């Protein structure tokens, strides 16, 4: 099984590639809609501005391929912006539409805390999570974001708090997504990626 990393020209693709490499997983990075359509497993990493991701997906004709593959049941892991883009829209770029595969919108975190939410934080599992399988509940994950999906009742498997409760881990059928960066989260992050590889295999 090979992981297809959606390369939209920004984001932290090399960090993700190295993290998969350390786990002995094969990966290819690609901006090609054809490659995305043929993928066995998809990973959408993300750091940066919501608008940059959405524009890249549209300009490079990746949107339809990505939605098609996910709807066909291809295992998908979204990281950070890769989680946010699954929803309808984001306050970061209200004029642009997301992939609209999950109900809800992305909002700014409240301004009574320091933003961006930057660094290591813990998550609280809401129900049994396949991504968090075997990871201690006290584990820390590395976050770097100012926007988040506020506590969406339906899909969030684990939440985190920074000024507000927001979705940290999302799991719905073949859709998996995390607001933090597993590729930067030490042993706990490596285990989470390993769990995704197992699910996708």
């Amino acid at each position, binding site marked *: 099984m090979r992981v297809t990393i959606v390369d939209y020209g*920004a984001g932290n693709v090399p960090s993700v590639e190295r993290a998969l490499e350390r786990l002995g997983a094969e990966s290819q990075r690609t901006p090609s809609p054809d490659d995305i359509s043929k993928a066995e497993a998809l990973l959408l990493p993300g*750091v*940066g*501005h919501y608008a*940059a991701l959405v524009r890249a997906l549209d300009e490079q004709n990746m949107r339809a391929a990505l939605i098609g593959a996910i709807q066909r049941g291809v295992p998908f892991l979204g990281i950070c912006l890769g989680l946010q883009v699954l929803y309808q829209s984001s306050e970061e770029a209200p004029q642009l539409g997301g992939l609209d595969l999950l109900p809800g919108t992305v909002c700014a975190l409240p*301004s009574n805390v*320091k*933003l*961006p*939410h*930057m*660094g*290591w*934080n*813990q998550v*609280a599992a809401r129900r049994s999570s396949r991504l968090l399988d075997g990871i*201690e509940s*006290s*584990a*820390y994950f590395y*976050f*770097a*974001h*100012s926007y988040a999906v506020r506590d969406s009742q339906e899909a969030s498997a684990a939440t*985190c*708090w*920074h000024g507000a409760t927001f979705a940290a881990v999302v799991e719905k059928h073949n859709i998996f997504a995390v607001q933090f960066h597993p590729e930067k989260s*030490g*042993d706990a992050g490596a285990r989470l990626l390993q769990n995704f590889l197992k699910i996708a295999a």
Partner: protein
Amino acid sequence: MSLAHRIIPCLDTDGQRVVKGVNFVGLRDAGDPVALAARYNREGADELVVLDIAASRDRRPTFLETIRRVAAERPELISELSLEFGAQAVVLAIDAKRAGGHWDVMVRGGRESASLDAIEWAKKGVQFGAGEILLTSVDRDGTQMGFDTTLTSAISRAVSVPVIASGGAKLPQHFVDVFKEGAADAALAASIFHDGVQSIRTLKEFLAARGVEVRLSC
């Protein structure tokens, strides 16, 4: 459950070796960057900062120094970087030095005043889209007298983004002070970690015992 305070070792490299200066000058060798990074990773460092300061040896401005100076003259650069890469990727480094009742922003390796008030500059940088501030006290850097908690607190309370305090760390208590009194979100140090004066793990245990939220599991 809340965001952990970060401990950040800083590796100033000349391209090959880690080097360390006192008050920004007088560089000496402090080890192999790869070996140090691996050790800090094992000990539980929360982030690593790697600064290429080769240019000061080559007598040309470093990339960081260039950005710092350009930003001081043309703050729009911060917005452009922020819109392209996201605010979380834009760290505004401020070298501040006390000048009477306020702090001056220093450039050119901490030697020259940019004639900007550090607090005003920090606020402006955040308005323009900086997502974090790396604040170095030029007065304390390399002295091991402790962080400048007054400076750190003034900047941290003036802006809405996280502040990494830097300059002057030696004792574990210095870190307690900069988190509690200085309201820092992260603390950065170099030589005390490189020279083994302070182990990151022991330091974090000290902080946890004094009620400072840190990430211990790793």
